[in-house]
């Protein structure tokens, strides 16, 4: 990262900490914003947060490492999280998992060489009546079949190069009418 970029990032973090009340409770919301923007929370970011909040960097690391949706290592642009909990298991998550591994050429916990996809397990995603369910970044897919895995990956590939978290696209699940 260029020095100017670092300074920019530091200034942004300082501003957001103030926006969130300028105390320790700002820590997680700011970490989440960094995570969403950069895909991980680097050592540099942790140091800045520690400086701004007047706490030890290890405190920041302790928090960041506690939560499974926050990571300190870079991951793929698309993080696929397949639900492994019982109702989804009963609806065939194992076959979906196999197909994801086949189509991406990686195992769970790994990232593709091109840095595009990371494959992870998740616990219940709150879609148990429509399993198997998976999240791609923030977007939820339900009633996934081994066959539809391919379509989901293609959808991700289509938006490469475009800045998107897949949020603004139409959702495949039951959602508030006004959010559709």
């Amino acid at each position, binding site marked *: 990262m260029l020095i100017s970029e670092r300074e920019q990032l530091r200034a942004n973090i300082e501003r957001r900490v103030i926006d969130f009340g300028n*105390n*320790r*409770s*700002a*820590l*997680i*919301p700011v970490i*989440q914003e960094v995570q969403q923007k950069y895909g991980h929370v680097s050592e540099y970011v942790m140091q800045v947060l520690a400086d701004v*909040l007047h706490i030890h960097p290890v405190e920041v690391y*302790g*928090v960041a490492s*506690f*939560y*499974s*949706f*926050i990571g300190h290592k870079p991951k793929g642009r698309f993080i696929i999280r397949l639900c*492994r*909990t*019982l*109702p989804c*298991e*009963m609806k065939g998550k194992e076959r979906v998992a196999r197909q994801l591994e086949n189509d991406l050429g990686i195992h769970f916990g790994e990232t593709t060489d091109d840095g595009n996809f990371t494959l992870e397990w*998740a*616990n*219940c*995603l*709150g*879609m*148990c*009546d*429509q*399993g198997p369910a998976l*999240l791609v970044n*923030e*977007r*939820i897919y339900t009633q996934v079949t081994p066959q539809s895995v391919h379509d989901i990956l293609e959808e991700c590939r289509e938006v490469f190069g475009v800045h998107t978290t897949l*949020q603004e696209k139409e*959702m495949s699940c*039951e*959602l*508030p009418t*006004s*959010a559709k």
Partner: protein
Amino acid sequence: MRTSDVSKMTFSSVEPGAGLRQALKMASEEIIDLIAESGLKGRGGAGFPTDIKWKLAADSDDELKYVVCNADEGEPGTFKDRFILSHFADLIFDGMTIGARAIGATKGIIYLRGEYTYLRAFLTDLIAQRRAGNLLGKNILKTEGFNFDIEIRMGAGAYVCGEETALIESLEGQRGEPRNRPPFPVNTGFMGHPTIVNNVETFTWVPCIVTKGAPWFHDIGTEKSTGLKLFSVSGDCGKHGVFEFPMGITLKELLEEVDGSHAKAVQAGGASGRCIPAAEFDRNICFEDIPTGGSIIVIGPDRDMLNVAENFMEFFVDESCGQCTPCREGNAKLLEGIHLLQNGRCSMQYLRELHSLGESIQLTSKCGLGQSSPNAFLSIIDNFKDEIMGRIQP
């Protein structure tokens, strides 16, 4: 088939804002008395009387108090809060605002699980609309001196943060590790101020009780578990989705409604609940018999009960915050035991030891996660010994 009939639910018959308007004509004590009369108990699982929680917070003379809506819904098999957030969010905000009026709070926080980030923009818009309509903000609905606003905070993929003290730790920018209780959040909550933490569904029933009256709610259900409840139904049944039933319904009746009468067992209450065998389907779902936050997982005749136990135990090993030894080490030991059973290598003597280890974990863990993590496995040992012992490896 997915069958969540939104239009038939009680929540659909209550006009957004109506309950709040009515409550603003009442004094703080009158609101709490009304909730007491209805018998409403927490819908998040533990079933603590809502009026008592609110009264304790109301009695404090701290100037800063908080209303927190627990939308962390992480219990496996539960999705009714997501459903309410999607269809009846206005009623949740009404309930939170009525709660604020009752205890004298000025700030509200909705702690939304990270997995539901896709709902965030929708909820943010709705909050903005409510501000514009004077349902939030200063002098709400022209009520002089009643100021209240709601902000959304996101979880980040930790089940234990649904536990109310861990949730507060997380809001304060800490690791989501449960605290010792007491002190309770009603005394020492967010930033040390009195805080009521209630489940999404609990808040949603409040405007219904205000508009329909406490007797309406109180006359449904059993003596100690009044009113209606939403259930999240999944697994081996004909109909899946969110269903509204009166408290006290028997498992048998419930299974008939969802085309699941052939089930050999029902996991009631998610991973931390108990596994009820078919022989006990005439038992009632209510706080005095089978308590549940609403998760009903129907287990069909062909399912392997050890697989059920294994899946849930993996969940707890993964989600334990690691603070206390019984939960951190004990659950891992139980999981090893399940693997021994799966391989047909567990003696009756060792099974008994596993059982008593499970009981120790229940007794000695610091928070509800560890206290309930052995439930499913223990009830499977108790009810399905014949199925789980003496396995011949595949």
